[in-house]
């Protein structure tokens, strides 16, 4: 258990003088070394808490009332929206192409009709992504 104080024989310096990972800068038996070695997991958790609070503080200007220093959320929304649309379109088109390849492998004589259906399906799926693009183009000034 890391909360218990463990007295391991950690080398404080490697042979060429580099400080080893996890070594404390004070001597091994110093009281502070004992305290911080043992509570490494608590310290890491505390670090995570402070990092999260700091990130929340970055978002504060977005709630400022209409000042010129406010972070605009429109590009973030546009990016996330377009990424979602493009990703899901990729999934759908992948499924369509996979089915077409498999059908062609089973029945190579049906090539003409299969190509029509494949192209039609791909274009219809892609048009959904393009609707998202058009909304972004309209809304982003």
């Amino acid at each position, binding site marked *: 258990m890391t909360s218990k104080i463990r007295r391991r024989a950690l080398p404080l310096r490697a042979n060429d003088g580099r400080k080893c990972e996890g070594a404390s800068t004070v001597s091994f038996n110093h009281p502070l070394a004992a305290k911080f070695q043992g509570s490494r997991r608590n310290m890491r958790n505390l670090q995570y808490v402070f990092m999260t609070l700091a990130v929340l503080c970055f978002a504060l200007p977005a709630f400022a009332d209409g000042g010129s220093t406010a972070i605009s959320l429109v590009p973030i929304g546009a990016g996330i929206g377009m990424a979602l649309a493009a990703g899901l379109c990729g999934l759908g088109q992948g499924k369509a192409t996979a089915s077409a390849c498999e059908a062609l492998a089973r029945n190579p004589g049906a090539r003409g009709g299969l190509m029509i259906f494949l192209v039609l399906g791909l274009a219809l799926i892609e048009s959904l992504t393009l609707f998202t*693009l058009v909304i972004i183009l309209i809304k982003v000034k």
Partner: protein
Amino acid sequence: MPESFALVRLLNALLMGVEAKAFQSIGVAPAEAIQKAIKVNQALGLELLVAAGLIAFFLLVRLTLSADRPNPAQQIAEMIHETCGGLADQIIGHGYEQFQAWVTCIFLFVLINNLLGLIPGIEAPTVSPWVPLGLAVPTFLFYNYQGIRAQGLIGYLKHFCGPIWWMAWLLLPIEIVSHLARILSLTIRLYANMFASDMVTLGFFSLIPVGVPAIFLGLHVFVSLIQAFVFMLLTMIYLSLAVSKEH
């Protein structure tokens, strides 16, 4: 903004006088009439040029038709006619000949308009959103007209009600909305594909000016072909749905 193309300036000089006179005959004052006359912009000028070119090609083929010694223009026309005819036969089935002209013209027009965007300095007419709208609305009117002609007004309207008569109250608004959405989807599909293709080429051109944008021009060619083909295919599918008789 003064247009840079000589063709567009010529068209403006010819047509604005005619339009101003037309407005004056309705009763608009002369000074206002010139302002109200719709200026021909680059997209419209290029569209008219493409239309004139296509009509010239059709005339050339028709006037030099020969069964023994077909010239190259006739061979190209036969190739196009056979491809579109075969596709129409597959999708519409019996009685496809009356629609073949419209469908072939849509395909050729959209294809050449898209490919005009490859020429540096010229923006493809289909990049402006009004041009695909101007293609989608006549297609919508055409297939509705053909449906009414083939099945009569009542018979065609019965299509909208679906197969079960007691669900018609639900299906009628859904069908009407989905038919109107066809105009929207045809327009936006063509416009957004061309516009995005332009944007992507411009974006990569601003990053790496040499060599790499050529790949995106190749992509533009591929996308133009596919979008023209899909426009034609969807027109045929809508026609087949409108004209089909359920036995």
